[in-house]
Protein backbone atom coordinates (compact mmCIF):
# COMPACT_ATOMS: atom_id res chain seq x y z
CA UNK A 1 0.00 0.00 0.00
CA UNK A 2 1.54 3.32 -1.04
CA UNK A 3 -0.92 5.74 0.41
CA UNK A 4 -3.05 5.86 3.48
CA UNK A 5 -6.10 7.93 4.31
CA UNK A 6 -6.18 8.86 8.00
CA UNK A 7 -7.80 12.26 8.16
CA UNK A 8 -5.73 13.26 5.15
CA UNK A 9 -4.05 11.49 2.23
CA UNK A 10 -0.49 10.70 3.06
CA UNK A 11 2.22 9.07 1.05
CA UNK A 12 3.36 7.01 4.01
CA UNK A 13 6.70 5.65 2.90
CA UNK A 14 7.70 8.83 1.07
CA UNK A 15 7.10 10.68 4.34
CA UNK A 16 9.36 8.36 6.25
CA UNK A 17 12.39 8.26 3.98
CA UNK A 18 13.68 11.82 4.53
CA UNK A 19 13.05 11.34 8.22
CA UNK A 20 15.57 8.56 8.82
CA UNK A 21 18.44 10.60 10.30
CA UNK A 22 16.33 12.47 12.84
CA UNK A 23 14.47 9.21 13.52
CA UNK A 24 17.61 7.56 14.90
CA UNK A 25 18.20 10.53 17.19
CA UNK A 26 14.65 10.25 18.50
CA UNK A 27 14.97 6.49 18.91
CA UNK A 28 18.29 6.64 20.75
CA UNK A 29 16.94 9.37 23.06
CA UNK A 30 13.91 7.22 23.92
CA UNK A 31 16.02 4.08 24.38
CA UNK A 32 18.45 5.85 26.68
CA UNK A 33 15.64 7.40 28.71
CA UNK A 34 13.80 4.10 28.96
CA UNK A 35 16.94 2.12 29.77
CA UNK A 36 18.06 4.34 32.62
CA UNK A 37 14.61 4.60 34.15
CA UNK A 38 14.04 0.87 33.86
CA UNK A 39 17.42 0.13 35.44
CA UNK A 40 16.52 2.31 38.43
CA UNK A 41 13.11 0.63 38.63
CA UNK A 42 14.74 -2.83 38.59
CA UNK A 43 17.08 -2.01 41.48
CA UNK A 44 14.61 -0.10 43.64
CA UNK A 45 11.61 -2.30 42.76
CA UNK A 46 13.50 -5.48 43.59
CA UNK A 47 14.63 -4.12 46.96
CA UNK A 48 11.09 -2.96 47.86
CA UNK A 49 9.63 -6.26 46.63
CA UNK A 50 12.09 -8.34 48.63
CA UNK A 51 11.27 -6.34 51.76
CA UNK A 52 7.50 -6.65 51.25
CA UNK A 53 7.71 -10.35 50.42
CA UNK A 54 10.05 -11.47 53.17
CA UNK A 55 8.73 -9.57 56.14
CA UNK A 56 5.12 -9.67 57.26
CA UNK A 57 5.85 -6.63 59.39
CA UNK A 58 7.13 -4.58 56.44
CA UNK A 59 4.26 -5.84 54.28
CA UNK A 60 1.64 -4.84 56.86
CA UNK A 61 3.16 -1.38 57.10
CA UNK A 62 3.84 -0.56 53.45
CA UNK A 63 1.61 -2.79 51.31
CA UNK A 64 -1.49 -0.56 51.57
CA UNK A 65 0.61 2.42 50.52
CA UNK A 66 2.22 0.49 47.66
CA UNK A 67 -1.14 -0.82 46.43
CA UNK A 68 -2.64 2.67 46.59
CA UNK A 69 0.22 4.25 44.64
CA UNK A 70 0.13 1.42 42.11
CA UNK A 71 -3.48 2.33 41.28
CA UNK A 72 -2.61 5.94 40.37
CA UNK A 73 -2.67 6.28 36.56
CA UNK A 74 0.59 7.44 35.03
CA UNK A 75 -1.13 10.45 33.50
CA UNK A 76 -2.03 11.61 37.03
CA UNK A 77 1.69 11.87 37.84
CA UNK A 78 2.38 13.98 34.73
CA UNK A 79 1.29 17.42 36.07
CA UNK A 80 3.04 16.79 39.38
CA UNK A 81 6.25 15.76 37.60
CA UNK A 82 6.19 18.88 35.41
CA UNK A 83 5.39 21.25 38.30
CA UNK A 84 8.05 19.76 40.56
CA UNK A 85 10.79 18.90 38.05
CA UNK A 86 10.19 21.33 35.23
CA UNK A 87 9.97 20.55 31.54
CA UNK A 88 12.34 18.15 29.86
CA UNK A 89 14.43 15.14 30.74
CA UNK A 90 13.90 14.74 34.49
CA UNK A 91 10.11 14.40 34.55
CA UNK A 92 10.24 12.06 31.55
CA UNK A 93 12.63 9.71 33.32
CA UNK A 94 10.70 9.87 36.57
CA UNK A 95 7.43 9.04 34.82
CA UNK A 96 8.95 6.05 33.02
CA UNK A 97 10.49 4.93 36.32
CA UNK A 98 7.08 5.09 38.06
CA UNK A 99 5.43 3.11 35.28
CA UNK A 100 8.12 0.42 35.35
CA UNK A 101 8.39 0.14 39.12
CA UNK A 102 5.15 -1.59 40.16
CA UNK A 103 5.29 -4.79 38.10
CA UNK A 104 8.71 -5.47 39.61
CA UNK A 105 7.54 -4.70 43.15
CA UNK A 106 4.47 -6.93 42.81
CA UNK A 107 6.24 -9.84 41.08
CA UNK A 108 9.14 -9.78 43.53
CA UNK A 109 7.07 -9.50 46.70
CA UNK A 110 4.60 -12.19 45.56
CA UNK A 111 7.30 -14.62 44.50
CA UNK A 112 9.36 -14.12 47.65
CA UNK A 113 6.28 -14.60 49.84
CA UNK A 114 5.59 -17.87 47.99
CA UNK A 115 9.05 -19.41 48.47
CA UNK A 116 8.19 -22.87 49.88
CA UNK A 117 8.78 -23.09 53.60
CA UNK A 118 10.28 -26.55 53.07
CA UNK A 119 13.12 -25.03 51.03
CA UNK A 120 13.90 -22.48 53.74
CA UNK A 121 13.78 -25.12 56.46
CA UNK A 122 15.98 -27.48 54.47
CA UNK A 123 18.56 -24.75 53.93
CA UNK A 124 18.58 -23.87 57.65
CA UNK A 125 18.87 -27.56 58.51
CA UNK A 126 21.81 -27.95 56.12
CA UNK A 127 23.62 -25.06 57.75
CA UNK A 128 22.71 -21.91 55.81
CA UNK A 129 22.78 -18.92 58.16
CA UNK A 130 19.72 -16.62 58.03
CA UNK A 131 21.64 -13.77 56.44
CA UNK A 132 22.62 -16.03 53.55
CA UNK A 133 19.09 -17.33 52.88
CA UNK A 134 18.55 -14.38 50.52
CA UNK A 135 21.29 -15.41 48.18
CA UNK A 136 20.91 -19.15 48.52
CA UNK A 137 17.13 -19.61 48.59
CA UNK A 138 14.93 -16.52 48.24
CA UNK A 139 16.50 -15.14 45.07
CA UNK A 140 16.98 -18.35 43.08
CA UNK A 141 13.59 -19.71 44.10
CA UNK A 142 11.78 -16.45 43.27
CA UNK A 143 13.78 -15.66 40.15
CA UNK A 144 11.41 -17.09 37.50
CA UNK A 145 8.54 -14.90 38.73
CA UNK A 146 10.82 -11.91 39.20
CA UNK A 147 11.91 -12.32 35.59
CA UNK A 148 8.27 -12.34 34.50
CA UNK A 149 7.88 -9.06 36.40
CA UNK A 150 10.99 -7.65 34.74
CA UNK A 151 9.68 -8.51 31.28
CA UNK A 152 6.33 -6.92 32.02
CA UNK A 153 8.07 -3.93 33.52
CA UNK A 154 10.32 -3.45 30.48
CA UNK A 155 7.33 -3.43 28.15
CA UNK A 156 5.51 -1.00 30.46
CA UNK A 157 8.59 1.24 30.70
CA UNK A 158 8.69 1.36 26.93
CA UNK A 159 5.00 2.18 26.64
CA UNK A 160 5.42 4.85 29.32
CA UNK A 161 8.05 6.56 27.17
CA UNK A 162 5.30 8.30 25.24
CA UNK A 163 3.72 9.65 28.44
CA UNK A 164 7.11 10.70 29.79
CA UNK A 165 7.92 12.50 26.58
CA UNK A 166 4.72 14.48 26.81
CA UNK A 167 6.46 16.42 29.58
CA UNK A 168 8.19 18.62 27.03
CA UNK A 169 11.23 16.71 25.78
CA UNK A 170 12.45 17.77 22.38
CA UNK A 171 13.81 14.38 21.36
CA UNK A 172 12.33 10.91 21.58
CA UNK A 173 9.87 8.79 19.67
CA UNK A 174 7.04 10.05 21.87
CA UNK A 175 8.14 13.66 21.37
CA UNK A 176 8.29 13.07 17.63
CA UNK A 177 4.76 11.64 17.64
CA UNK A 178 3.52 14.53 19.72
CA UNK A 179 5.03 17.00 17.26
CA UNK A 180 3.61 14.98 14.37
CA UNK A 181 0.15 15.17 15.94
CA UNK A 182 0.37 18.96 16.11
CA UNK A 183 1.56 19.24 12.51
CA UNK A 184 -0.84 16.60 11.20
CA UNK A 185 1.93 14.20 10.03
CA UNK A 186 0.11 10.90 10.09
CA UNK A 187 3.11 9.20 8.46
CA UNK A 188 5.37 10.06 11.38
CA UNK A 189 2.74 8.95 13.86
CA UNK A 190 2.54 5.57 12.14
CA UNK A 191 6.32 5.30 12.07
CA UNK A 192 6.28 5.99 15.83
CA UNK A 193 3.70 3.25 16.43
CA UNK A 194 5.69 0.75 14.38
CA UNK A 195 8.88 1.78 16.20
CA UNK A 196 7.22 1.19 19.58
CA UNK A 197 6.01 -2.23 18.45
CA UNK A 198 9.30 -3.41 16.96
CA UNK A 199 11.55 -2.08 19.72
CA UNK A 200 9.22 -3.41 22.43
CA UNK A 201 9.22 -6.85 20.84
CA UNK A 202 12.99 -6.89 20.35
CA UNK A 203 13.62 -5.64 23.89
CA UNK A 204 11.53 -8.46 25.32
CA UNK A 205 13.30 -11.03 23.14
CA UNK A 206 16.73 -9.77 24.21
CA UNK A 207 15.79 -9.80 27.90
CA UNK A 208 14.30 -13.27 27.60
CA UNK A 209 17.45 -14.57 25.91
CA UNK A 210 19.71 -13.00 28.53
CA UNK A 211 17.88 -14.39 31.56
CA UNK A 212 17.00 -17.78 30.12
CA UNK A 213 20.10 -19.61 31.39
CA UNK A 214 19.35 -18.71 35.02
CA UNK A 215 15.69 -19.75 34.94
CA UNK A 216 15.94 -22.75 32.66
CA UNK A 217 15.27 -25.04 35.61
CA UNK A 218 11.73 -23.68 35.89
CA UNK A 219 10.79 -24.19 32.24
CA UNK A 220 8.30 -26.94 31.62
Amino acid sequence: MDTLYLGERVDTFAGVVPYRGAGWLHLSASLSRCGWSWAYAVVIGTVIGLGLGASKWVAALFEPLANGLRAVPLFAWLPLAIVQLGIGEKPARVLIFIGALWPIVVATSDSVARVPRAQLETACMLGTPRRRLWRRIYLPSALPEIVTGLRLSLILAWTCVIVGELSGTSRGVGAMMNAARESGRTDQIIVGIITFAVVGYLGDRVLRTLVRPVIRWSES
Partner: protein
Amino acid sequence: MTSSGVLVARGVRKSYGDVHVLDRFDLEVPAGCTFALLGPSGCGKTTLLRLLAGFEAADGGTVTVDGEPVLGPSRRRGMVSQAGALFPWLNVRQNIGFGPREHGDPDRDRIVADLLAVTGLTDFAKSLPRHLSGGMRQRAAIAQVLANRPPLLLLDEPFGALDAQTRLRMHEWVRGVLAERTTTTVLVTHDVDEALLLGDRLGILSARPARLVSERALAFGEKRGRHTLSDPAFVALKAEVLDEVLAGR
Protein backbone atom coordinates in the same frame (compact mmCIF):
# COMPACT_ATOMS: atom_id res chain seq x y z
CA MET B 1 31.25 -33.87 73.77
CA THR B 2 31.11 -36.82 71.35
CA SER B 3 28.45 -36.84 68.66
CA SER B 4 26.65 -40.11 69.10
CA GLY B 5 23.07 -39.01 68.40
CA VAL B 6 21.36 -40.05 71.63
CA LEU B 7 17.87 -38.58 71.43
CA VAL B 8 15.80 -37.95 74.54
CA ALA B 9 12.35 -36.33 74.62
CA ARG B 10 10.72 -35.76 78.01
CA GLY B 11 7.17 -34.59 78.67
CA VAL B 12 6.83 -32.91 75.28
CA ARG B 13 3.55 -31.05 74.71
CA LYS B 14 2.32 -29.36 71.57
CA SER B 15 -1.07 -27.89 70.67
CA TYR B 16 -2.45 -25.90 67.77
CA GLY B 17 -5.26 -23.88 69.28
CA ASP B 18 -7.62 -26.37 70.89
CA VAL B 19 -6.06 -29.34 69.12
CA HIS B 20 -3.67 -31.19 71.42
CA VAL B 21 -1.22 -33.00 69.16
CA LEU B 22 1.31 -34.22 71.72
CA ASP B 23 0.73 -34.59 75.42
CA ARG B 24 3.53 -35.50 77.84
CA PHE B 25 5.34 -37.39 75.12
CA ASP B 26 8.44 -39.35 76.13
CA LEU B 27 10.94 -41.02 73.82
CA GLU B 28 14.48 -42.26 74.19
CA VAL B 29 16.51 -43.46 71.23
CA PRO B 30 19.98 -44.90 71.86
CA ALA B 31 22.94 -44.01 69.67
CA GLY B 32 23.05 -45.74 66.31
CA CYS B 33 19.54 -47.18 66.64
CA THR B 34 16.89 -46.95 63.93
CA PHE B 35 13.67 -46.31 65.80
CA ALA B 36 10.51 -46.77 63.76
CA LEU B 37 7.38 -45.02 64.98
CA LEU B 38 4.04 -46.28 63.75
CA GLY B 39 0.80 -44.52 64.37
CA PRO B 40 -2.63 -43.89 62.94
CA SER B 41 -3.03 -41.17 60.35
CA GLY B 42 -3.19 -37.69 61.87
CA CYS B 43 -1.84 -38.75 65.26
CA GLY B 44 0.92 -36.14 65.23
CA LYS B 45 3.84 -38.07 63.74
CA THR B 46 4.99 -35.24 61.50
CA THR B 47 4.61 -32.68 64.29
CA LEU B 48 6.77 -34.88 66.50
CA LEU B 49 9.52 -35.07 63.89
CA ARG B 50 9.37 -31.32 63.28
CA LEU B 51 9.85 -30.77 67.01
CA LEU B 52 12.78 -33.20 67.08
CA ALA B 53 14.30 -31.42 64.06
CA GLY B 54 13.88 -28.02 65.72
CA PHE B 55 11.54 -26.66 63.03
CA GLU B 56 8.90 -26.05 65.67
CA ALA B 57 9.08 -25.28 69.37
CA ALA B 58 7.31 -27.44 71.95
CA ASP B 59 4.79 -25.86 74.31
CA GLY B 60 6.39 -27.79 77.15
CA GLY B 61 8.92 -30.50 77.90
CA THR B 62 12.42 -30.91 76.56
CA VAL B 63 14.13 -32.51 73.58
CA THR B 64 17.87 -33.13 73.71
CA VAL B 65 20.37 -34.71 71.34
CA ASP B 66 23.57 -35.83 73.02
CA GLY B 67 22.47 -33.81 76.03
CA GLU B 68 22.13 -30.55 74.07
CA PRO B 69 18.64 -29.04 73.96
CA VAL B 70 17.04 -28.74 70.54
CA LEU B 71 16.33 -25.03 70.09
CA GLY B 72 16.18 -24.73 66.30
CA PRO B 73 17.23 -26.42 63.05
CA SER B 74 20.80 -27.67 62.96
CA ARG B 75 23.00 -29.51 60.53
CA ARG B 76 23.48 -32.10 63.28
CA ARG B 77 19.87 -33.20 62.71
CA GLY B 78 18.82 -34.05 59.17
CA MET B 79 15.19 -34.52 58.18
CA VAL B 80 13.76 -35.96 54.98
CA SER B 81 10.04 -35.74 54.29
CA GLN B 82 7.71 -37.45 51.84
CA ALA B 83 7.90 -34.56 49.38
CA GLY B 84 11.66 -34.21 49.77
CA ALA B 85 13.07 -30.73 49.52
CA LEU B 86 15.70 -30.77 46.84
CA PHE B 87 16.37 -27.31 45.47
CA PRO B 88 14.92 -27.39 41.95
CA TRP B 89 17.43 -24.90 40.53
CA LEU B 90 20.43 -27.03 41.57
CA ASN B 91 21.50 -30.25 39.92
CA VAL B 92 21.90 -33.49 41.88
CA ARG B 93 25.60 -32.91 42.60
CA GLN B 94 24.98 -29.36 43.82
CA ASN B 95 22.02 -30.49 45.94
CA ILE B 96 24.05 -33.20 47.66
CA GLY B 97 26.97 -30.83 48.14
CA PHE B 98 24.80 -28.00 49.45
CA GLY B 99 25.38 -28.65 53.16
CA PRO B 100 29.14 -29.27 53.00
CA ARG B 101 29.48 -26.14 50.87
CA GLU B 102 27.63 -24.05 53.45
CA HIS B 103 30.11 -24.84 56.17
CA GLY B 104 33.19 -25.08 53.95
CA ASP B 105 33.83 -28.79 54.39
CA PRO B 106 37.20 -29.47 52.73
CA ASP B 107 36.08 -33.07 52.03
CA ARG B 108 33.08 -31.90 50.05
CA ASP B 109 34.06 -33.34 46.68
CA ARG B 110 34.88 -36.74 48.14
CA ILE B 111 31.68 -36.82 50.22
CA VAL B 112 29.55 -35.91 47.21
CA ALA B 113 31.28 -38.47 44.96
CA ASP B 114 30.78 -41.18 47.61
CA LEU B 115 27.12 -40.37 48.06
CA LEU B 116 26.51 -40.21 44.32
CA ALA B 117 27.95 -43.71 44.12
CA VAL B 118 25.96 -44.95 47.13
CA THR B 119 22.73 -43.58 45.68
CA GLY B 120 23.51 -44.86 42.19
CA LEU B 121 23.13 -41.35 40.85
CA THR B 122 26.63 -40.76 39.50
CA ASP B 123 25.32 -40.74 35.94
CA PHE B 124 22.65 -38.22 36.94
CA ALA B 125 24.98 -35.85 38.81
CA LYS B 126 24.24 -33.02 36.40
CA SER B 127 20.50 -33.67 36.17
CA LEU B 128 17.95 -31.34 37.68
CA PRO B 129 15.59 -32.89 40.28
CA ARG B 130 12.62 -32.61 37.91
CA HIS B 131 14.36 -34.97 35.52
CA LEU B 132 14.62 -37.72 38.15
CA SER B 133 12.11 -40.43 39.04
CA GLY B 134 10.42 -40.35 42.46
CA GLY B 135 12.77 -42.98 43.88
CA MET B 136 15.86 -41.20 42.57
CA ARG B 137 14.66 -37.91 44.03
CA GLN B 138 14.22 -39.48 47.46
CA ARG B 139 17.65 -41.10 47.30
CA ALA B 140 19.13 -37.71 46.38
CA ALA B 141 17.20 -36.04 49.25
CA ILE B 142 18.55 -38.59 51.74
CA ALA B 143 22.06 -38.17 50.33
CA GLN B 144 21.71 -34.38 50.65
CA VAL B 145 21.06 -34.78 54.37
CA LEU B 146 23.69 -37.50 54.90
CA ALA B 147 26.34 -35.29 53.28
CA ASN B 148 26.43 -33.30 56.52
CA ARG B 149 27.09 -36.52 58.47
CA PRO B 150 24.40 -35.71 61.05
CA PRO B 151 24.38 -37.82 64.22
CA LEU B 152 20.55 -37.86 64.01
CA LEU B 153 18.49 -38.62 60.90
CA LEU B 154 14.73 -38.02 60.88
CA LEU B 155 12.66 -39.69 58.17
CA ASP B 156 9.06 -38.54 57.79
CA GLU B 157 7.29 -41.13 55.64
CA PRO B 158 10.06 -40.68 53.10
CA PHE B 159 8.75 -43.29 50.67
CA GLY B 160 5.03 -42.61 51.04
CA ALA B 161 4.72 -41.13 47.55
CA LEU B 162 6.44 -44.02 45.79
CA ASP B 163 4.89 -47.06 44.16
CA ALA B 164 5.09 -50.41 46.00
CA GLN B 165 7.99 -51.86 44.00
CA THR B 166 10.13 -48.74 44.24
CA ARG B 167 9.32 -48.49 47.94
CA LEU B 168 10.56 -52.03 48.54
CA ARG B 169 13.79 -51.31 46.66
CA MET B 170 14.20 -48.13 48.68
CA HIS B 171 13.73 -50.04 51.94
CA GLU B 172 16.58 -52.36 51.03
CA TRP B 173 18.75 -49.47 49.92
CA VAL B 174 18.12 -47.40 53.08
CA ARG B 175 18.69 -50.42 55.29
CA GLY B 176 22.09 -50.89 53.64
CA VAL B 177 22.98 -47.20 53.87
CA LEU B 178 22.06 -47.00 57.56
CA ALA B 179 23.91 -50.23 58.36
CA GLU B 180 27.13 -48.66 57.05
CA ARG B 181 26.74 -45.61 59.26
CA THR B 182 26.37 -44.97 62.96
CA THR B 183 23.60 -42.44 62.43
CA THR B 184 20.74 -42.61 64.92
CA THR B 185 17.51 -42.63 62.93
CA VAL B 186 13.89 -41.94 63.77
CA LEU B 187 11.49 -43.10 61.08
CA VAL B 188 7.81 -42.24 61.27
CA THR B 189 5.48 -44.12 58.98
CA HIS B 190 2.02 -45.62 58.74
CA ASP B 191 3.37 -48.52 56.68
CA VAL B 192 3.82 -51.56 58.99
CA ASP B 193 6.11 -53.39 56.51
CA GLU B 194 8.35 -50.34 56.30
CA ALA B 195 8.57 -49.99 60.08
CA LEU B 196 9.40 -53.69 60.56
CA LEU B 197 11.91 -53.83 57.70
CA LEU B 198 13.84 -50.71 58.66
CA GLY B 199 13.58 -50.44 62.44
CA ASP B 200 15.85 -51.82 65.14
CA ARG B 201 13.15 -50.82 67.60
CA LEU B 202 9.48 -50.16 67.04
CA GLY B 203 7.27 -47.72 68.91
CA ILE B 204 3.52 -47.49 68.48
CA LEU B 205 1.77 -44.19 68.92
CA SER B 206 -1.76 -43.64 70.17
CA ALA B 207 -4.30 -41.50 68.35
CA ARG B 208 -4.06 -37.76 69.00
CA PRO B 209 -2.74 -36.53 71.38
CA ALA B 210 0.08 -38.93 70.55
CA ARG B 211 1.77 -40.94 73.27
CA LEU B 212 4.10 -43.88 72.97
CA VAL B 213 1.85 -46.81 73.93
CA SER B 214 4.31 -49.64 73.32
CA GLU B 215 7.90 -50.24 72.36
CA ARG B 216 9.75 -53.38 71.34
CA ALA B 217 13.00 -54.52 69.78
CA LEU B 218 12.90 -55.91 66.23
CA ALA B 219 15.19 -58.83 65.58
CA PHE B 220 14.94 -59.81 61.93
CA GLY B 221 18.68 -59.54 61.41
CA GLU B 222 20.71 -57.10 59.37
CA LYS B 223 19.92 -58.65 55.99
CA ARG B 224 16.27 -57.75 55.85
CA GLY B 225 14.70 -57.43 52.46
CA ARG B 226 11.84 -58.61 50.32
CA HIS B 227 12.42 -62.22 51.46
CA THR B 228 11.70 -61.11 55.04
CA LEU B 229 8.15 -60.19 54.09
CA SER B 230 7.23 -63.88 53.85
CA ASP B 231 9.04 -64.90 57.05
CA PRO B 232 6.37 -66.44 59.38
CA ALA B 233 7.73 -64.48 62.36
CA PHE B 234 7.49 -61.27 60.33
CA VAL B 235 3.93 -62.04 59.20
CA ALA B 236 2.84 -62.86 62.75
CA LEU B 237 4.41 -59.71 64.19
CA LYS B 238 2.89 -57.61 61.40
CA ALA B 239 -0.61 -58.86 62.29
CA GLU B 240 0.00 -58.19 65.97
CA VAL B 241 1.32 -54.69 65.33
CA LEU B 242 -1.50 -53.90 62.95
CA ASP B 243 -4.04 -54.88 65.62
CA GLU B 244 -2.28 -52.67 68.10
CA VAL B 245 -2.21 -49.66 65.76
CA LEU B 246 -5.89 -50.08 64.87
CA ALA B 247 -6.81 -50.45 68.54
CA GLY B 248 -5.13 -47.13 69.20
CA ARG B 249 -7.43 -45.22 66.86
